[in-house]
């Protein structure tokens, strides 16, 4: 798995937002600014989240993995947001269930079959409460990337 091609310091955010739409705008703007996604990505993410929510209640923390169809993606990348205060998401696959989300991985993915490794790393981190707790307490971008990098190196197939 080529860590460097997916994660970038400029795509790590520490967000102080009240709603998930506000968060989506921040994250999508960052991705658009650096050319990773098309202008249409933001609307697509918002719509997709309404239809198929991506909030997940992990063991201790809430996480979300917003993503959408690959036609809106120019170049694959993953944006990470650590939220100062949790934001409410709807829970994946559970109607009327909400989850307070603290860590967000926004996935700009083109060919899922080729990206299995990176997706497994993301899901692996979601299932690892120590890693999630560490991420949620990070204070700077390089720290976030260092934790993800270490986890991915220790968990490569």
């Amino acid at each position, binding site marked *: 798995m080529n860590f460097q091609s997916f994660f970038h310091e400029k795509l790590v955010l520490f967000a102080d937002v009240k709603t998930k739409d506000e968060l989506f705008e921040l994250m999508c703007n960052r991705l658009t600014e650096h050319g990773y996604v098309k202008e249409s990505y933001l609307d697509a993410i918002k719509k997709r989240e309404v239809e198929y929510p991506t909030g997940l209640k*992990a063991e201790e923390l809430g996480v979300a993995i917003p993503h959408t169809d690959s036609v809106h993606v120019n170049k694959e990348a993953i944006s990470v947001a650590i939220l100062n205060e949790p934001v409410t998401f709807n829970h994946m696959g559970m109607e009327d269930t909400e989850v307070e989300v603290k860590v967000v991985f926004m996935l700009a993915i083109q060919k*899922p079959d080729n990206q299995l490794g990176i997706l*497994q790393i993301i899901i692996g981190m979601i299932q690892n409460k120590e890693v999630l707790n560490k991420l949620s307490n990070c204070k700077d971008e390089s720290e976030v990337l260092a934790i993800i990098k270490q986890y991915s190196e220790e968990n490569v197939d």
Partner: protein
Amino acid sequence: MSKRILVACGTAIATSTVVAKKIEEVLKGKGHNVYIDQCKASEAPAKASNFDLIVTTTPIGNVGDTPVIQTVSFLSGIGVDADIEKIMDVLGLE
């Protein structure tokens, strides 16, 4: 003939990819080779009749007689063992 499992999620981009791989690995570890395909939730009703089981992370429409297990355990990590048992039970695997 190996059992056929259809894994569905919203966009067939992220979650079904991971869920499909996880199920394949766990069942392989128990000595069972299964055929797994993935699709968008909206495509599931049309594809259902060719499969022995549908595992989905999100509600899906009418899929006729094909059994459905809706779960996010393979993503959240909570309740995986129980779901694997359910899957094996539905497929008649031991």
